[in-house]
């Protein structure tokens, strides 16, 4: 059975912990391992931070919409901003020796590492959407 949980926050860093609390509840309810749950939490955290800072460019009145879709064997999280659109295709590889000591640029790399699927798209009504899927393993 598919279930959906949605929340929207203003683009303020103080609300990011609120999303983390919901993420924790969802992964615990679904029975993810402690390790997987903490990496999912980090991936969602990074996506929300990107939506606030790069998507909405810290405009506090712009919303970040987070939607958790739970299925028996997988969790899919959608994070949407309401900004001008964000293209992650041209991001440098943070593990490249030229970028290794960069102070930023690792968030999407962590998201792609810890989730089974990560896909960025443009929402038809504006803004960017990142869809991240994590399959449950035999834990």
């Amino acid at each position, binding site marked *: 059975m598919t279930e959906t949980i949605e929340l929207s926050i203003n683009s303020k*860093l*103080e609300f*990011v*912990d609120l999303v983390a609390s919901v993420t924790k509840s969802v992964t615990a309810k679904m029975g993810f391992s402690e390790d997987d749950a*903490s990496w999912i939490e*980090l991936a969602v*955290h*990074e996506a929300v*931070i990107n939506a606030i800072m790069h998507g909405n460019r810290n405009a506090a009145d712009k919303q970040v919409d987070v939607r958790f879709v739970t299925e028996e064997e997988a969790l899919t999280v959608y994070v949407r901003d309401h900004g001008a659109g964000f293209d992650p295709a041209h991001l440098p590889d*943070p*593990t490249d020796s030229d970028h*290794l*000591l*960069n*102070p*930023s*640029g*690792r*968030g999407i*790399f*962590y998201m792609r*590492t810890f989730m089974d699927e990560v896909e960025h798209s443009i929402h038809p009504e504006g803004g960017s959407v990142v869809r991240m899927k994590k399959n449950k393993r035999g834990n």
Partner: protein
Amino acid sequence: MANLNIKDRQTNDVTILDLSGKITIGEGSVQLREAVRRQLDEGHKKILLNLGDVSYVDSSGIGELVSSYTTTNHNGGQLKLLNQTKKIHDLLTITKLLTVFESFDNEEAAVASFK
């Protein structure tokens, strides 16, 4: 966002910063940056970050560890890590930063390693 608590102490000429809490975007990262900057301004150039009680780190926190390392190097100092948690170890490994930092599990050995 929850705070990062930082306490400093001296062992020989090494400054040990005991970190507890979260190193995340915003306050946590800024607190770490300011603490390292303060030590360098005071002429303390051998800095050991004790991460044993750090409960959570995000990409910004990892970036701040990198910045602390490069800032200290640029000021003629050395910055090393003590008591990496498994999560921090994993995050550093994935982004190939493990080889950048000199890291220890034993404080005495860490202090002795500074030249």
